[in-house]
């Protein structure tokens, strides 16, 4: 039995009353956050409070990382160097081709009077930690609104798309990975130009193509790149490779599993792309002839 304090000690409301007050408050916060999105300022304030904690907490990991970098062996450096030199050579030849192609492309675009694509600016960001949350695939990077990172910007690594900035704090930003369950990327099959929507599964190594008809031509090994029709991801970034196609006539859609190209889980650095969207305005809907509304009948008056 709960022991009631004598009335001459002022102890405030009973625990049950306090519980009701605080749970109502948190439920109100939940609803306000989930439905109304009013709480961004509050979140910013709290993030500033917890920022030093996060930096301190991720310090040991980065110290260990740096220490292990310091003790690299001679052979690994040599092999790295040889590999990089080789890659550099390969890239140099591609770059020359690219330059030629770019000038040619610019010329053609001018001829076509087309809008030339803006070259995207990028910011290098370091991954502070992967969100300690088994429910979602997110990482936190060390660039925030102070570095002009904005929500919605795509994040890539050297190989392909990693994810998308979903929430920005002053010095941090949260990136939802493409493997997150609720995350969708519109993609294009480079082999035949088929468009589809790539969805995360919540598993690290698997993505799924959604709503692809049974007879659509996808095969193992097909490369998927962003199609750019969503206006978020710039077109042409490699995203994934088809790894398994399962066609079962019992279902409406084919089940196509893909493997993400970017090392979504093991990175220390990523690039945030400040993609400037130059999409044309949406066509304005034709105004319908508008009848003047009848005078409002006041209810209850």
């Amino acid at each position, binding site marked *: 039995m709960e022991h009631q304090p004598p009335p001459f000690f002022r102890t405030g409301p009973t625990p049950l009353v306090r519980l009701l007050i605080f749970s109502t408050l*948190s439920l*109100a916060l*939940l609803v306000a956050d989930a439905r109304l999105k009013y709480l961004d300022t509050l979140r910013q304030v*709290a993030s500033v409070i*917890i920022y030093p*904690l996060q930096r301190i907490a991720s310090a040991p990991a980065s110290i260990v990382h740096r220490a292990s970098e310091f003790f690299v062996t001679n052979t690994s450096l040599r092999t790295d160097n040889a590999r990089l030199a080789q890659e550099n050579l390969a890239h140099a030849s591609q770059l020359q081709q690219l330059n030629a192609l770019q000038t040619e492309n610019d010329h053609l675009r001018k001829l076509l009077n087309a809008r030339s694509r803006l070259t995207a600016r990028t910011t290098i960001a370091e991954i502070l*930690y*992967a969100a300690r949350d088994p429910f979602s695939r997110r990482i936190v990077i060390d660039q925030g609104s102070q570095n002009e990172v904005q929500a919605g910007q795509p994040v890539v690594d050297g190989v392909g798309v990693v994810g998308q900035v979903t929430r920005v704090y002053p010095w941090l930003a949260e990136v939802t990975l493409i493997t997150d369950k609720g995350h969708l990327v519109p993609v294009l099959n480079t082999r035949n130009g088929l468009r589809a929507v790539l969805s995360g599964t919540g598993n690290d190594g698997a993505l799924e193509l959604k709503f692809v008809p049974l007879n659509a031509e996808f095969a193992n090994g097909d490369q998927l790149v962003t199609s750019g029709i969503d206006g978020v991801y710039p077109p042409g970034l490699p995203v994934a490779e088809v790894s398994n196609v399962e066609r079962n006539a019992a279902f409406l859609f084919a089940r196509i599993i893909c493997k993400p190209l970017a090392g979504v889980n093991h990175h220390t650095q990523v690039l945030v792309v400040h993609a400037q969207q130059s999409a044309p305005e949406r066509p304005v809907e034709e105004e319908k002839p508008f009848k003047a509304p009848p005078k409002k009948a006041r209810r209850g008056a």
Partner: protein
Amino acid sequence: MMQALGAHEILLPVRPAFIALTLVLAALLNVVPWSGWAMWVRPDLVALVVLYWCIWQPRRIGFATAFLLGLLMDVADGALFGQHALAYSILAYAGIVLHRRVRMFTLTPQVVHVIPLLLLNDIIVLAIRGLAGADFPGYRYFIGSFVGGALWPLISVLLKLPQRPRSDPDHV
């Protein structure tokens, strides 16, 4: 037989600065980036320490502290605002209501009280996530609570250390 810690001994009053320090340390350890299997066995240390102080110092630590720490954890997780706040508030309520009972027991039976409370904490977070549209992450999600329960004796001893009276050398 082991004596119930603190139940039959006279302790020094706890310093508020020490309570604050332990809570900050717990929050710090909670935001340490874990990955892989460590993410699953990681106990919610903030919940554990809040529960400890609610049981041993219910006059000092209560709903407001639990609520604010919950909000901080929500931001650190990037989760919906208020889910940890709600879970920790309910945990604080359980701690405050049960504090006289739990204090009667030795450390081992205390663990039996603590584990269900931590599980309740997990289930509340899970339920809110579920309502927001997340999938059930599997039963290994609950491992952390059992690890937290296993840490309870250690935490009890550690957090009580500054309150132990110094042994008097003149005393025979």
